[in-house]
């Protein structure tokens, strides 16, 4: 019984959202606001169940890990933004998280991305075969793309041509990403239509 009611609710909400294809209307607005409200509530409970309780309260109370008072302190002073007289305290929390992000950013960018990607671009360019041609295209594409984003010098002469070829590679990459995104959305659309025809209307078995 619960499942049947759930399917009818899900089907109704799906149709409410699709009604936007005709034009903006109260049914769409209802579903949109309900989605935002429920999702906000969901994330509150999720944060409690998967972050605050297992990462802060349980280790502090059960395992006596009192070092966790530090993130708890920074978390609590973040809430001082509610009180204008002491809202300056929230800057300490922001500074703490930004410092952490920046520190991880330095090591993460070098170790996690720059070095592996440069290494992957250092490919053999010897011999006359299709693999060499592909390797050449990769090296050439990476360099021209970087030239396109090089704004420290006026793009004239070689830089201008490099930049022009770079934008061609970039357009191919954007086109591929665009195609992928369209396919992902269409598969979601197929999933929703399949749900309506199969689970709800039982036309498809």
């Amino acid at each position, binding site marked *: 019984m*619960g499942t049947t009611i*759930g399917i009818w*609710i*899900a*089907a109704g*909400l*799906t149709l409410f959202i*699709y009604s936007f294809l005709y034009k903006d209307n109260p049914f769409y*607005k209802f579903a949109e*606001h*309900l*989605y*935002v409200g*429920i*999702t*906000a509530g*969901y994330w*509150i*409970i999720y*944060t409690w*169940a998967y*972050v*605050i309780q297992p990462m802060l309260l349980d280790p502090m109370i059960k395992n006596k890990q009192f070092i966790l008072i*530090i*993130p708890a302190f920074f*978390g609590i002073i*973040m809430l001082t933004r*509610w009180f204008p007289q002491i809202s300056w305290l929230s*800057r300490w929390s*922001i*500074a703490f*998280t930004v*410092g*952490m992000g*920046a*520190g991880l950013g*330095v*090591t993460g960018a*070098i170790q996690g991305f*720059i070095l592996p*990607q440069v290494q*992957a671009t250092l490919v053999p360019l010897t011999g006359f075969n299709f693999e060499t041609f592909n390797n050449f295209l*990769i090296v050439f*594409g*990476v360099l021209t*793309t970087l030239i396109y*984003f090089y704004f420290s010098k006026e793009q004239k002469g070689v830089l201008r041509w490099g930049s022009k070829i*770079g*934008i061609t590679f970039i*357009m*191919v990459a*954007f*086109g*591929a990403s*665009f*195609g992928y995104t369209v*396919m992902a*959305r*269409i598969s979601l*659309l197929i999933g929703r239509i399949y749900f309506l025809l199969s689970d709800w209307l039982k036309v498809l078995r």
Partner: protein
Amino acid sequence: MLKGKGIPIFITFLVGMIMIISFFIPHKPFGDIEKISLNWYSIIAGFTMLLGVDSLIGMHFRKLKRKDENWFFSLVLILGFTATVVVGIIETVRFGTAFDDKSYFTYIYNYFIVPLQSTMFSLLAFFIASAAYRAFRARNFDATLLLITAIIVMLGRVPLGEQISPYLPKFTEWIMQVPQMAAKRGIGLGISLGALGVSIRIILGIERSYLS
């Protein structure tokens, strides 16, 4: 003194340097710092969620109080939020976790959030189609190249593409592995170098816009 930017800049410098130094010392206590700091980051982010929710609910509550246009939908949002949180708390008490398979909180997730979310995203399929049409109308080389690549990639990933030509899926794979990869790598390197520069500026206190 406490209210100024000196202490926050010092905190940023100290934490940033500890993170960098710990990377080069894979021994205790430095070795575990990255893992611990990510946990701490999650804890602080958990508290900031309260600020976000307060802002959202506060705004809609004011709209409701003033009886602004579309106030009814603000009421829907607040009721949806309240009901979900109340159900979550009750089910946490009942099952020990709100995420139990039999809980009404999971029911809300399965029959409200999942369909609303996937339908909302699938709606983009239609708007992406209209965006593609507009891009095609731009009628220049770059826009045409983008669209042709998109069409090839889309066709190469479905059975229809193989029906048109058995080489189409292979060509799609080549686009993904060679020119697409090259540009993506170039963009990624640019982003990483930029992020590296900004991170160093933040740690050294040159970039302070995050404190304003």
